[in-house]
């Protein structure tokens, strides 16, 4: 019985120990997102960086365009976005049929000049770092 108790105490301790180690999810101020951001995204196939722009609007819509691929602002793709705590979700709206393509990211840093988030679906995790366009 004593052994069983000891095991239970140990398990509980371990459980409590792990519980205490799990960090609370971080929250970010979404207003800091408003504006145009520039991301240099490496294309391993082409082995070169692409200058990708994102524009977050307060209407929870945005645009993205890849300068390197000769996509200009007027041809930018649109998306809807939400930022819940650190969960940044883009739903890219298809131009042709209006279908939505959800993409989820985890924001790790958001300041007035810097935005960093991670695509944790990818394996390994893909990290994005954006700077605010002045």
């Amino acid at each position: 019985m004593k052994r069983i108790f000891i095991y239970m105490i140990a398990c509980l301790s371990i459980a409590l120990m792990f519980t205490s180690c799990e960090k609370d999810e971080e929250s970010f101020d979404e207003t800091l997102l408003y504006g145009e951001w520039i991301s240099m995204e490496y294309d391993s196939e082409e082995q070169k960086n692409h200058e990708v722009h994102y524009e977050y609007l307060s209407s929870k819509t945005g645009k993205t365009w890849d300068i390197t691929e000769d996509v200009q602002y007027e041809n930018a793709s649109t998306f809807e976005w939400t930022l819940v705590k650190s969960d940044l979700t883009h739903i890219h709206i298809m131009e042709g049929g209006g279908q939505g393509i959800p993409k989820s990211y985890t924001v790790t840093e958001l300041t007035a000049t810097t935005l960093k988030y991670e695509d944790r679906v990818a394996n390994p995790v893909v990290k994005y770092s954006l700077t605010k366009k002045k």
Partner: protein
Amino acid sequence: MKKVLKRIALALAILLFVVFSVIGVALWFVFTPERLTPVVRKQAAQFLTCQSEVERVELTFFSTFPKFGLKVSGFALINPMPDAQSDTLVRLDELIGVVDVGVYWKRGDIVLNELIVRKGSINAFVDSLGRPNFDITPPDTAVVEDTSASSAFKLDIHNVELDGVDLSYVDRQSKMTADVRALSLQMSGAMDSVNLITNINLKNSLVSFDFEGAKYLDSADIKFAIPSKVVMARSFVEFDESVFSINGIELSFKGTVENDTVNRRINTDVEYELRKFPVSTAIALIPASFQSYLKGIEVDGFFESDGKVSGFYTDSVMPLMDIHMVFTDGTLKYDALPLPLSSINGDFTFYSDLKNDAISYFRINSFSANTPKSSFGTKGVVNHLFSDIRIDLNSQIGRLNLSELKPFIPEDMNIKMKGIAAGNVQTAFSMSQVEKMLLDKMRIAGSVTLSDFDFAFDSIFMKTNKTKVDFALPNPNKQNKYSQYLYSKVQAENVEAGILKGPRTFIRNGIITVETSDVMDTTRLPDVACVFDIDSLAASMDTIDVQIRKPKGKLVMLSQKGPSRKDEVAVTYSNLGLNAKAGESTVKLDKTHLVANVLNFMDAPKIDLECEAANLSAAMDGNSVDIVKFSINTNLVNDPTQKDSLLQWMPKGTLSLDKGIIRTAMLNSPLEIPSIKMNFSPEVFDIKESHLKIDRSDFSLSGTLTNMLSYYRGDSLLKGDFSFVSSQTDVLQLMSLTSGIGEDSSSTDEQTVVDDSSSVTGPYMVPKGIDVTLKTKIDRALFGTEVARDIRGEVRVRDGLLVLDDLLFTTPASKMQLTAIYKTPRKNHLYAYFDYHMLDIQIEDLLKMVPSIDTMMPMLRSFKGNAEFHLAAETYMDSLYKPKKSTIRGVSSIRGYDLVLMDGETFTEIAKTLRFTKGAQNKVDSLSAEFTIFKKEIDIYPFMVVMDKYKAVVAGRHNLDMSFNYNISLLESPLPVKICVDVSGNVDDLKVRPVKCKYEDLNRPVSRKLLQNRQMELRKMIRESIMKNVVKE
């Protein structure tokens, strides 16, 4: 009786003997010269103031039988004066006078029966002070008796003869000298107080006459015979048949002349005849002082004339002259005339009183002349001589060698001309019309034939072997009331005209008729009617050659005529054949017929046009058009307020085309046009019927194209609504035909990121500025190697956007629904969107039809069986259709039932890890998956695969670089534990490793985690969004 007669005869003989004896005694014994001569000398000295000489005076009877005469020999009057040509006034060898003494004794009449002067000279002289040497009688101091009461005076001269007498008259005061040599004259006459009747016959004389130093006659041989009667009271002279001759120029005349002192006029009525004489003789008579007028003129020939002069002569009135002149065998050289004339023959009549225009005329009865190489003639009338001279001539050009016209052409004009012209010309015009160039008032008509004509003016040339030109001004053809000014008809056998080293035209057997209104009226265009009928017409310029067989037609151009008072042009034209060549380009036509009418062509033309052509064949730069029958019926309205020349023309009408074939480098195969029928207007193109074939495509197109004018103005899109019915259509080929329509150079010339090879063809650019909808009904459509059948739906092209809207069609693999959008904002920025729905398709067929699905879901290769597939994807592409990865978006949903899991390499690996039994059926009961595509990432949302005793959830990401990362969670299996694996890497480097299960509660909604629920919601959203476009049949 005999005895009586014998006695009477004897008595007469005795009487005659006595008489002649008495006369003989008187002559030879009583009135001897020795007795008479002193008497005469004494009387002469008494009556003359000058010295006189009388050598001998004798009475004659027998030589002047039956009259007594007085014969004076050696008679002279000597009256010397300074500077006189001679001291002797008169010297006569012999002077015989016969006077009827009895009459004078009885009635006091002087009857001079004869006065004969033989050999002698008379020298009359007037000095510079007017004193004559013939004033040789003493002043008459006797009282003038009143003779009115006395009996009438009578003088009767039976015969006056001068034979071999020289006369000389010198008048220093008047500076006049007259000299008559060898005068032989016979005169008779009678005079009383009323009449003077004379008959003067000048048989011979050589007359010289000088006046003021000018010699007017020089030994002129003058003869005349003039019988006349003078009524002295009326100053009336009546000439009987009279003849006057000077140097052989003989003038005969007859008539009367009267000095009408009451009316202060001279009345004439004289007929004359000037007998044929050499002109050179007459010219020789012209005084030297007047010869200068003939300088540079050499004229010869024969002249004769006859006529009549009648009427009154006053200061203001001339008698009427009816003069007929004939000039024959003449020659003329005149410095101002570059060509000498020969064989001049003319017959003229001059009828005039030199006053009255109404009756005066100069008629050329005939005139002809030759130049060295030409001959011509004319006849006609010239009248209105004293006001506006009017000339009415009919001229014949027997043969005009055009090379002779060279001297008449100014040297600075580089004109060369040769050939022969022949024909006739009628002219009627007045001088004022010529001065004012009033061609519309003149009458000019004729017919001229040109033979071997060769003309060149600088680089302009014209040649013809034979051409006949008929012309008339005004137009005698009264049918066309608007073009009565000029008529011209040209009949040419062979004519070549053009510019050296430039355009040239050749006409063979052509008839061209032109009628015009006043071409000199500069205030408006002339009315013209032109009819032509030509066997063949050829023209060339540079590399352009045109040959027309049997061109025939009529052109009528009217200026401001008809009820509308508007300009009008009407054209009818036809030909049997036309060949044209420009460089390597050719056009051929068989029969062509054209009717056109242009109204108000000067301001806002309105054109009605009907044109039919058969067997049109054209080729250019490897492109060709062949049309068996072509017709167009249109009217065009011009709007001059438009600045754009194209917008100024508003066409409306119908077009019909049969059996056409177009071959062009743009098309790999000929475009066959079995038929096209359409109506068109500035705004609307209404295609009633059209059948087209190109290579593997054939289709019928009908419908309307609207807003054409607005589109051209840039006001709106070109709108079209067509029905496109085809048994077979090669889609890609038709797309290439319409690529780039409406593109401006800025968009097509933009910099692209493609290699040079792409610039040859470039991407398909959706036409801009148009909004065209095709309601398609295609039995068989070819997309490259793929075939789709029974296509129904709309294809819409709107301003650079191509939409295939809910197109239903059948492929060998499946019945499909397709909505596609393709737009081309820039050449290097092309957008494509596809919304596929395949409701029943074999997976392997699906992978074959859409190979890119294998990229997105490689695991599909492991399945076989029927599936339901939906895919919506879009991307922008560069000019090489290479997707711009940043713009790739897509969603897809797939459902599969009773699928067979194939023994694929991947499955084997998975089965090994999951410990599948080899005997297990590789059947999958169902497959339900959704995935999205974003950039190069393909996210496969968790889906369940049920197979045998296994139930697994698969989810993960696949990248376009063919790397992937899947999580497979085995929810149910015979195994006592749940096994989950991550499969990552790529096909060549596959890594499978056990991991914590992510989706073990996916099939238990109550147990799902937040993330799993979220993903299920997204799947539902994806599914719903893609299914909303499925059309339910």
